[in-house]
């Protein structure tokens, strides 16, 4: 169902004043959500999955990521930051991981928690889920919000295959909220503010519009890029005078899609790792046709190499991956007691409600009308030059033909035809 009137939160913002109408974004959008009309880019809110491709490609600072202002934490009496595993890959190797973690406290947080803390538990949970849901194959990792939204939008029949449990940072959020009740009895539950430090816009969107969440999760999301600038000064100061704090490097594997798959794999579990949104789409299409039924679990991440490739990160995804691998190798993590997490899992605290489709694929609800429209699309397509130049503002000639039939564009939008006609005159 196409719900055109539903307002959907997106962490991507277009600054029209900066937009030159160059159509670079139009061409890289995997769901064809962007059009340039009247020389300005616009995003179809129903189609956008917050993958961040357009943010990466825009040369004119016209498509910018939206995340919360650090001022937001002042609304809470007890502030917790949760850092995504990819955070560890953003700093040069002379900066100890502990220092980069510690410097977040200097920004005004009372506590800093790491996504990597729950990795060991999450691997166990994923394996348990795979083994108890034998009737569903393959099962997809639920961690990447852009992938979840891609499935809602373009592959709705595969929604039941998504692991219906919260992603690691939300699992950690639930744990912190539970612990807070007992450990900080002097505070009210509303005093606690939990914020994520995220590598991509999809995670910002997921904080503000979580899919399938039963309970209140986070209170805001900060961009890695924005935080990076702020912590760098503190890092310099702390480097000379580091404090002893616990860190959990072993679990940083979560930032790397390939390593996550390897960890879930077992004698009875075959896992596949796929990253990059084009690869994700190809694999999802093969799963639809049951060509990949031999896999029990598929890790799907929208960005190159996984979360290290997120558009809000500073470092190149390959360099960041190498640094994280080094940290994992040299790790000497303290023992983690996962009893509490296991209890919460058993109580269903991490369960996610069935995910609903956001299908954009149907041309019309009635198949006869849909065929009529498709015939018209094909007729317009034969008139168009077939260059797929995007100069009209639609990604391809086919998309323009469809836009014309759906009443969203006119054949006069094609500049190539216009030029040819003017020569004929």
């Amino acid at each position, binding site marked *: 169902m196409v719900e055109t009137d539903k307002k959907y939160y997106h962490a991507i913002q277009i600054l029209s004043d900066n937009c030159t109408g160059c159509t670079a974004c139009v061409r890289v959008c995997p769901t064809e959500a962007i059009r340039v009309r009247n020389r300005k880019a616009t995003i179809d809110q129903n189609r956008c999955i917050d993958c961040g491709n357009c943010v990466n490609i825009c040369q004119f600072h016209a498509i910018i990521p939206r995340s919360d202002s650090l001022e937001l934490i002042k609304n809470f009496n007890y502030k917790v930051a949760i850092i995504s595993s990819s955070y560890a890959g953003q700093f040069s190797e002379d900066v100890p991981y502990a220092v980069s973690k510690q410097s977040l406290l200097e920004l005004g947080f009372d506590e800093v928690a790491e996504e990597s803390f729950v990795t060991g538990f999450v691997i166990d949970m994923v394996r348990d889920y795979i083994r108890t849901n034998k009737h569903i194959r393959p099962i997809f990792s639920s961690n990447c919000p852009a992938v979840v939204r891609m499935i809602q939008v373009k592959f709705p*029949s595969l929604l039941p295959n998504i692991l219906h449990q919260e992603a690691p940072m939300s699992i950690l959020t639930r744990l912190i909220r539970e612990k807070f009740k007992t450990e900080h009895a002097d505070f009210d539950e509303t005093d606690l503010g939990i914020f994520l430090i995220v590598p991509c816009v999809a995670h910002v969107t997921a904080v503000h519009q979580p899919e399938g969440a039963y309970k209140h999760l986070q209170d805001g999301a900060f961009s890695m890029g924005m935080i990076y600038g702020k912590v760098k000064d503190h890092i310099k100061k702390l480097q000379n005078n580091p404090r002893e704090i616990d860190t959990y490097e072993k679990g940083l594997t979560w930032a790397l899609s390939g390593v996550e798959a390897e960890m879930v794999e077992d004698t009875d579990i075959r896992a596949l790792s796929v990253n990059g949104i084009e690869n994700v789409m190809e694999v999802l*299409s093969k799963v*639809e*046709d*049951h060509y990949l039924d031999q896999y029990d679990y598929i890790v799907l991440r929208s960005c190159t190499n996984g979360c290290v490739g997120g558009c809000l990160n500073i470092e190149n995804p390959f360099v960041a991956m190498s640094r994280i691998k080094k940290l994992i190798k040299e790790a000497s993590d303290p023992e983690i007691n996962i009893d509490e997490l296991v209890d919460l899992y058993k109580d269903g605290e991490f369960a996610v409600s069935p995910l609903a489709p956001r299908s954009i*694929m*149907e*041309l*019309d*609800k009635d*198949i*006869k009308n*849909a*065929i*009529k429209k*498709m*015939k018209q699309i*094909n007729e317009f397509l034969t008139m168009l030059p077939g260059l797929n130049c995007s100069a009209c503002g639609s990604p391809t000639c086919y998309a323009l033909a469809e836009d014309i039939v759906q009443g969203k564009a006119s054949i006069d939008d094609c500049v190539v035809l216009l030029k040819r006609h003017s020569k004929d005159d």
Partner: protein
Amino acid sequence: MQDCAAVRSDMAEYWNIESGHEEAIMTFFDNRPVADVVLESEITEKDFVTSGRGSADVKNTLKRLGIGPEILRRVAVASYEAEINVAAHSNGGKMESSIFDDMIHLRFTDRGPGIANIEQAMVPGYSTADDLVREMGFGAGLGLPNIKKNSDALHIVSDYGKPTMVEIVIFY
């Protein structure tokens, strides 16, 4: 369009029609109506990189018409297997998909060299694929049986040294 050069009385013919669909199938083949939406694509001999695009197009088109996932899967598997068959075993050919509001008709025609024994080719596991095809991970001998399993009607006309025509019908 010339109606399939392969249909000649001296050629072997194979039919499989799922029970319950006999009348509808015969009416269709007797009248051969022209669809509002027709997709065509070329299939190049031994080109496993681009082969599969035609069936991907068909699947996406049906998705846009709101066809349900189970039918989509049947169409995707049947058309993909047939497309790969043309690439693997023939000297190249083409795929034509006629999309109606209650069914899809897929027709694959090639430039030979034909199927010597159609009944044998329908046996799961039987394959005449050469080493190159097997190296590419194809040639398990499940192509035609898979098409049969996923279609409501399968019609094959072929003979050794002649072009082959494969027709598939799937109802929504």
